[in-house]
């Protein structure tokens, strides 16, 4: 049972009934169809001191991601790979239901799911980010702040991280006299693919994509699927205690691939990469 604070969002019984009736007719309360994703807006380089940053607006949900590149020791067992660390926090200004303090269960899950999508898709070729094998590697931090909550933080944060990473400029470090020196030059990050996550939730017997906060308060189960540029599934996360049938999962996976391709096209256009 989740002890998360966000689960305290209470939707009026009248509104729940309205939502269920609307969904059963194929429309949602905000006039979207069941699998329609809210408009996405992306602004790049919003944080001047970061190596890359992106501000993503998915409907009313807003997330800012910043990339900072440093050098450090590689992770144990991954001596020949750069280090990638993705964190997320939901700021108290983002919603009346968020309190300051250590991250709650859902926020920890948010960072982990977004991290998994980027890591498992091998979006960044971390093997190219090694300076001295086993000793000094590039360490890339991607820190996300959710600044407005209106549902589907998983996808919005994922798009913010992918946009920030894909548009960042890595500083060129060199080793001189056993010391790391910043040459002042920059290089493109070694991007291999663009992972896109699509979250689908189940309310009653219906599957809906990109839920709002209200819809999330009524959902029985949630499934997030991340696909790469080839349309292969690279990561999945199921949430809540409700269940999906095999057919549900197949249908969600198909949608994740098709919708993911559409969003990837948008991201490419907005980030200006090929």
């Amino acid at each position: 049972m989740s002890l998360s604070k966000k689960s305290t969002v209470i939707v009026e019984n009248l509104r729940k009934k309205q939502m269920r009736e609307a969904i059963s007719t194929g429309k949602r309360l905000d006039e979207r169809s069941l699998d329609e994703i809210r408009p996405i807006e992306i602004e790049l380089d919003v944080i001047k001191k970061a190596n890359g940053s992106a501000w993503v607006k998915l409907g009313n949900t807003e997330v800012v991601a910043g990339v900072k590149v440093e050098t450090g020791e590689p992770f144990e067992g991954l001596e020949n790979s750069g280090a990638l660390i993705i964190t997320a926090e939901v700021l108290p200004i983002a919603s009346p239901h968020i309190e300051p303090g250590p991250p709650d269960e859902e926020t920890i899950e948010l960072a982990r799911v977004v991290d998994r999508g980027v890591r498992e898709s091998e979006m960044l070729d971390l093997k190219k980010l090694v300076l001295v094998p086993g000793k000094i590697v590039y360490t890339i931090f991607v820190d996300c702040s959710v600044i407005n909550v209106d549902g589907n933080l998983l996808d919005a944060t994922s798009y913010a991280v992918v946009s920030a990473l894909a548009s960042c400029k890595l500083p060129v470090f060199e080793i001189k006299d056993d010391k790391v020196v910043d040459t002042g030059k920059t290089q493109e990050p070694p991007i291999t693919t663009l992972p896109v996550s699509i979250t689908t939730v189940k309310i009653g017997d219906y599957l809906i994509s990109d839920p709002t906060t209200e819809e999330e308060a009524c959902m029985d189960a949630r499934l997030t699927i991340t696909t790469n540029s080839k349309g292969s599934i690279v990561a999945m996360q199921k949430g809540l205690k409700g269940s999906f049938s095999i057919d549900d999962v197949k249908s969600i996976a198909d949608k994740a691939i098709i919708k993911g391709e559409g969003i990837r096209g948008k991201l490419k256009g907005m980030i200006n990469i090929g």
Partner: protein
Amino acid sequence: MQEVKRKYVIPGDIVAEGNLRPLVNVFKNGNSIVATRIGITESNQDGAKVIPLSGIYFPRANDIVIGKILDHSSLSWSVDINSCFAAHLPAQDIFGRDFSPAHDDMGRQLSTGDVIVARIAIFDRTRDPILTIQDKDLGKIPTGELIKISPTRVPRLIGKRGSMIQTIEHASSTRVTIGQNGIIVVSGKDKEGTTLAINAIHMVEVEAHTSNLTQRIKQLLNVPESEIENDDAQTSVSSDPTINQDEINSNSKDKEMGMINSNGSK
């Protein structure tokens, strides 16, 4: 008809100068009346005030509000009234003076997520507002479509002496329950009428500060020209002070034209 002067202001702007009484959303600084909210000014012989264009709901005693039951303790329900204050509905309000937490099951009367229309019985800013549902037309709302608008648009939605809302109710054959806190429940026999009423309410919310709104609402609702004239005459006078306090809304074209005069001569 007394002359009404209007202009748009932001906090700190001077609303009027002279020996006027500061009414609402303004303060007096020497000989000037200064605005404390973004809105439209209004000054006449009675004093000067600002009618806000944005903002949260601030509770006032005797306001009718629509609230959502969040939870209950052994003595009261806590109710979300779309404000910075959480309201409380005492259990004694429903069970009477002989209420006993040991014998009366509060969860059976009102449970989490239920929607109630209530009156703010007591509110003095030092403690959270206390609600009551012991009055005509108050209590749990069993059916209807719930929508939310900005609380600052509520007076415009009601209209002068309730004219706007009566027009909407009449044309869409629905019953609209409006809370001063911006929560509205629309109940009607058919889906079509309810949708029409909801569209009209959203239009009022978006275009509350524009001129000729009443005419456009009537066009949206397909009110025949002959009825447009009759509507004003039929409107009953409401004793609700919150309705009368709204002077920006008016069916009279003159007043509406005056309202958009942002240069508003002083």
